[in-house]
């Protein structure tokens, strides 16, 4: 049976790996190629790498870096940062990358997703949406952001997701800005809500601090992509840098147990 994907998410800033909190306060982690090599050895399910400078600096994707990352990555790799055309996407896929992540460019013009899907296929098109929770007495609201949390968009997240799905996105990654780096757990309620309303594979990013947080998400939403930055690069509450990932046995046991709980709560398969 298909099992949930547990995905380290890495941020590249000025050529180095960093980890943020609330999209701010970057802490240097190390060399990206070295980290990818370690995650390959640890047999990570998948890897996401985002160049967080490219869109802000209006620069094109760093093909040199992508080539080196792909050469080390023996699991599926999703790359994002500065991709604005299907030519760039095809060139990245040809380097040995499986998935192309688009955020800012797709919010500006969702048809970029169709263009990329036509050349590399829907299965390789990943739409990323950064959400910030806005508390109000009339109920919580989620707002869409881009450009590393600097630009706010006045569009309903669910409408945007629908638009992205129709345009050919093969996966949607939801990144929770206010959970980023806190290591206190995922936004479970919103994840449940999202899972109900998304028809393509969904990945949740932002908030994990322990493997138990991953299990909690799977118990509540079933088969899903579970991504985290902090959990896989830090050890302990003082955030000592240590690249880590569960062993194959740990991972399979965690997924099986959490899925068993999820399926015992409902009759349908997903």
């Amino acid at each position: 049976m298909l099992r949930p994907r547990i995905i380290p998410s890495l941020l590249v800033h000025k050529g180095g790996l960093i980890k943020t909190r609330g999209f701010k306060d970057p802490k240097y982690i190390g060399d990206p190629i070295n980290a990818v090599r370690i995650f390959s050895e640890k047999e990570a399910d998948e890897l996401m790498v985002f160049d967080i400078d490219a869109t802000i600096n209006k620069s094109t994707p760093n093909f040199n870096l992508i080539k080196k990352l792909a050469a080390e990555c023996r699991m599926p790799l999703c790359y994002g940062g500065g991709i604005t055309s299907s030519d760039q996407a095809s060139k990245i896929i040809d380097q040995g990358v499986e998935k192309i992540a688009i955020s800012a460019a797709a919010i500006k013009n969702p048809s970029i997703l169709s263009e990329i899907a036509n050349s590399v296929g829907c299965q390789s098109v990943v739409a990323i949406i950064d959400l910030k929770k806005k508390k109000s007495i009339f109920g919580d609201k989620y707002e869409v952001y881009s450009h590393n949390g600097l630009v706010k968009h006045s569009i309903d997240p669910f409408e945007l997701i629908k638009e992205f799905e129709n345009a050919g996105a093969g996966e949607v990654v939801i990144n929770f800005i206010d959970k980023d780096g806190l290591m206190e757990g995922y936004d479970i309620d919103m994840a449940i809500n999202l899972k109900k309303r998304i028809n393509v594979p969904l990945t949740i990013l932002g908030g994990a601090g322990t493997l138990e947080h991953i299990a909690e998400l799977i118990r509540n939403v079933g088969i899903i992509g579970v991504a985290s930055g902090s959990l896989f690069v830090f050890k302990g509450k003082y955030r000592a840098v240590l690249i880590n990932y569960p062993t194959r046995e740990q991972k399979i046991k965690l997924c099986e147990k959490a899925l068993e709980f999820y399926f015992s709560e409902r009759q349908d398969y997903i």
Partner: protein
Amino acid sequence: MIAIIDYGVGNVQAFLNLFKFLGVKAYRATNSKDLNIAERIVLPGVGHFDHAMNKLVSSGMITKLEELVLFKKLPIIGICVGMQMLAESSEEGNLPGLNWLPGKVRAFKKYNKSFNLPTPHMGWNNLIPNSNSRLFSKGFENGAQFYFLHSYFFDCTDKENVVAKANYGFDFDAVVSCNNIHGIQCHPEKSHHWGFQLLKNFVEL
């Protein structure tokens, strides 16, 4: 030498990286002449079926490939859309496939009316062996987990050619073999030690 067919579609580099890691000599074949030294062939592919078929046709390699695969019987493995192109046709497109291994490529969503899972089928899933294929003869004593990423699947006409199945809502044909022609829907180049082992077994066929 293993020829990786480069017709402008797919992750050729991922295979070159992996064979280099395995210490197996492999090279990128971009035209018929390149294929003269091929001993084994890997046909990768990602994206839309018609797009891939169009690109393969315009690469000008099909006649030479037919000579090597159908007459000289060189071992070939098609991967993902590369596997799907071995079929007669695909519900994803209008162009005919290579028709080297009898079967039709079908859409998950159309095949079964009650199918309500998200597509693409994305992630790690088990292969369920169906025969004693030499592709799985070594290194799979404790099961086989592979990475999948697809919305269409190969439906073998002759079920005796099915080597392994996988389950996504229903069991579908995930690995197929007919004599020297093999196809695998999932991605051995991105499936850690399971994938290395499968490609190693292919090299040793």
